[in-house]
């Protein structure tokens, strides 16, 4: 039932509702682009059409996906050369009649077809020193103010789609840096911990000496592809770079920042807004 050759007939549908999907098929040994002609329906996304190719033409076509709602970050691939989530890329984005090319993330090793080996990101995650929380308040809770966690909540929106890692020049063009460069996704994680109101640890020597923070030359490609709109460069990487500079050239400023933060409940402060970042906005109040 497979039609792995170019121009294979798809499901029966009027010609104007058909589309040519040019999909990369292969494994670590090599591969090529194959055309599949399939029908499309109203409002569909690229993942819907790939699923139709799977069900009707190529049952062994490999693609990762889970939530199909832009929330899990599984279905990352490159559509017409641009890194995207397949489940959030509407077919209406492309001019009718043109073939749509879908290829795997280029920065990571191929497993098969559109699926890549992203284990690098999980290995780097294992090297992050975890949150070192200060003690709880007397009543057993932690007090944190909305204004103090707005930036952290922005970082927590990360769905780990690894599109930022895919486009990062350091990782994409210099595969040898994978041993000593954490990449934008992990810098978000470090920034989250460094700015976390409860955290008392110092990860700056690690960032400077082993995670390659200085290799980032702030081209902002990561920020551009983030489907969650996280301002990775402005709000995470640049503030981290500044903190590292503080540590090496102005330890007193750093100490002041950490100690001030650890003083129990206090009025909201705005110190954590990095340069170029928006000042924190008020969080949600009680029910309307």
């Amino acid at each position: 039932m497979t039609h792995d050759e170019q121009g294979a007939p798809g499901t029966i549908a009027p010609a104007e509702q058909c589309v040519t999907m040019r999909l990369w098929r292969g494994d670590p040994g090599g591969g090529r682009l194959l055309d599949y002609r399939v029908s499309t329906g109203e409002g569909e996304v690229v993942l819907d059409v790939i699923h139709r190719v799977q069900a009707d033409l190529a049952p062994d076509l490999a693609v990762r996906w889970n939530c199909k709602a832009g929330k899990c970050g599984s279905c990352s691939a490159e559509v017409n050369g641009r890194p995207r989530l397949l489940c959030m890329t509407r077919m209406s984005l492309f001019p009718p009649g043109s073939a749509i090319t879908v290829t795997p993330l280029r920065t990571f090793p191929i497993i098969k077809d559109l699926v890549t080996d992203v284990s690098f990101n999980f290995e780097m995650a294992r090297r992050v020193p975890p949150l070192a929380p200060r003690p709880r308040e007397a009543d057993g809770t932690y007090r944190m103010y909305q204004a103090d966690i707005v930036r952290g909540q922005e970082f927590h929106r990360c769905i780990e789609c690894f599109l930022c890692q895919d486009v990062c020049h350091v990782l994409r063009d210099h595969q040898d840096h994978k041993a000593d460069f954490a990449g934008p996704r992990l810098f978000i994680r470090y920034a989250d911990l460094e700015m976390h109101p409860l955290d008392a640890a110092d990860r700056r020597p690690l960032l400077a000496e082993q995670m390659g923070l200085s290799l980032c030359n702030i081209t902002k490609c990561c920020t551009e592809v983030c489907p969650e709109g996280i301002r990775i460069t402005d709000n995470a990487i640049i503030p981290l770079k500044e903190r590292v500079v503080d540590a090496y050239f102005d330890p007193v400023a750093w100490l002041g920042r950490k100690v001030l933060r650890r003083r129990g409940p206090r009025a909201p402060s705005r110190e954590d807004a990095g340069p170029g970042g928006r000042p924190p906005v008020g969080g949600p109040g009680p029910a309307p």
Partner: protein
Amino acid sequence: MPEQETHCLDVLVVGAGGAGLRAAIEARTEGARTGIVCKSLLGKAHTVMAEGGIAASMGNVYPQDSWQVHFRDTMRGGKLVNHWRMAQIHAQEAPARVQELEEWGALFDRTADGRILQRDFGGHRYARLAHVGDRTGLEMIRTLQHRAVALDIEVFMECTVLALLLDGGHVAGAVGYWRDSGRFVTFRAKAVVLATGGIGRAYRVTSNSWEYSGDGHALALWAGAELIDMEFVQFHPTAMVWPPSVRGILVTEGVRGDGGVLLNREGRRFMFDYIPPALAAETADTEEEADRWYLDRAGARRTPDLLPRDEVARAINSEIKAGRGSPHGGVFLDIASRHDAAYIRRRLPSMYQQFKELADVDITAGPMEVGPTCHYVMGGVRVDPDTAATTVPGLYAAGEVAGGMHGANRLGGNSLGDLLVFGRRAGLAAAAHAAGLATLPALDQAQVGAATGAALAPFERAGGETPYGIHRHLQETMQALVGIVRTREELCRALEEIAALSQRAAKVAVAGNRRYNPGWHLALDLGPLLVVSQCVATAALERRESRGGHTRDDYPLADPDWGRVNLVVRRHEGGLWLRSEPLPEVPSELRQLLEESR
């Protein structure tokens, strides 16, 4: 046999959603050598999709809240067929489980005085859901994932379990396959925790991801464990209905918790027409009172837009059937006329983005179109409430795969709490059980060979059909015949269809090789999908009344006799054996809580 990859563990956790991660964290903290096996990459499990929040009576917004009120709400939401002890443990322990997440890095939305903010949800008397906007599941899974990594728990990603291994009657581990290479792997363990989630992939319109194929339900059943309450399936009242490709994607109850209202084609707030007598005393009967309730808990009764999910789903279903639905076969959910755009974008960022990008709808400017979607199975593996132990020694189950906690209908927000509370207890009990065994249970290579042989069979069949058509047919059968409203005739037909599909599945063929082959993966998922579908239809046929997530058109009322029993399913001589069992007796002090009118 060249494939001999074997891992030896004290505790094997199957599933890396909220329950699995929490179980593994606890087992590891207790000193057990712990591994997690999961079908997707770490952090992608369905918990990530949870939106509204974690129900816990911390009393940060309403100090009068308490575990007793939460317990009562849970039992009443479950139409009183929940296991009372699970509902009690959950209500008592949820606050501590939420606070623990903060210690591991979670950043919940805050009250003005710096505590965890809590939001309103259906069926909860007080605002008690700890949340992060409308993406609480993401916060929860990432926090647990980081914690699991910090504890250096072994994670076997993209690996699917085919069968549990037994040593006599005791669990001895599991055999599975790596999704990327297709090679087999054996896990030997002293205890196994099932945390595989639900069965939603058996339905056509579902909020669930592909992973929800009832694996844990089937693995437990095949290993001799019992399932309970399988007739109760939750249809979440609000999911996207248009465009067709996104039909079923969840729209959080938080929209209504934050003031959104349901409207029919005529612009009428129809939920006032569907207030059940049992909840009439505590539900507003005018729009004025309902709107006042958002600001004044003491002086007004709650809006019927926030009735329990089963009531709202049935009401929407009725409106659509009566021809009062929206253009694309749903009803309207309006928050645009209730709050300003900035408020909506701040409180519901994910809903805003989802509708804008997938449906070209701006929810701050106009109403959403929504309809019911298969969302959750209340039924599951029967467990001991305190330890999450199943009826098979060494086998534990927690989260959606376990039954009993939610009775006939789960309240929103009670799932995330369930994952944390019973995930932890399962991990604790599994670690203790493992510590009590001097050696690993024996490995029976014949069982491994049987499982792997069956898994490879589809490659050896020539000319059979692919699994995609069978899966689609099953989804359409369950949707049409075992959906929100059921009848005897339709359920009988469903069972015949499932039997026929099982025959077809036994002859399914797959193309290509074993390397990351989704056709093969789906062919193997058909086994669990078919058997859990059979369990749901069988139990639904037996329960001749309507209650919670089980509505029978031919028995439209709740029957007090049926309200005194649970249905239990187990495997017997290759078929299913169903029996009813009296509910466990509720202690008198808790019974008093249930009898209070408000």
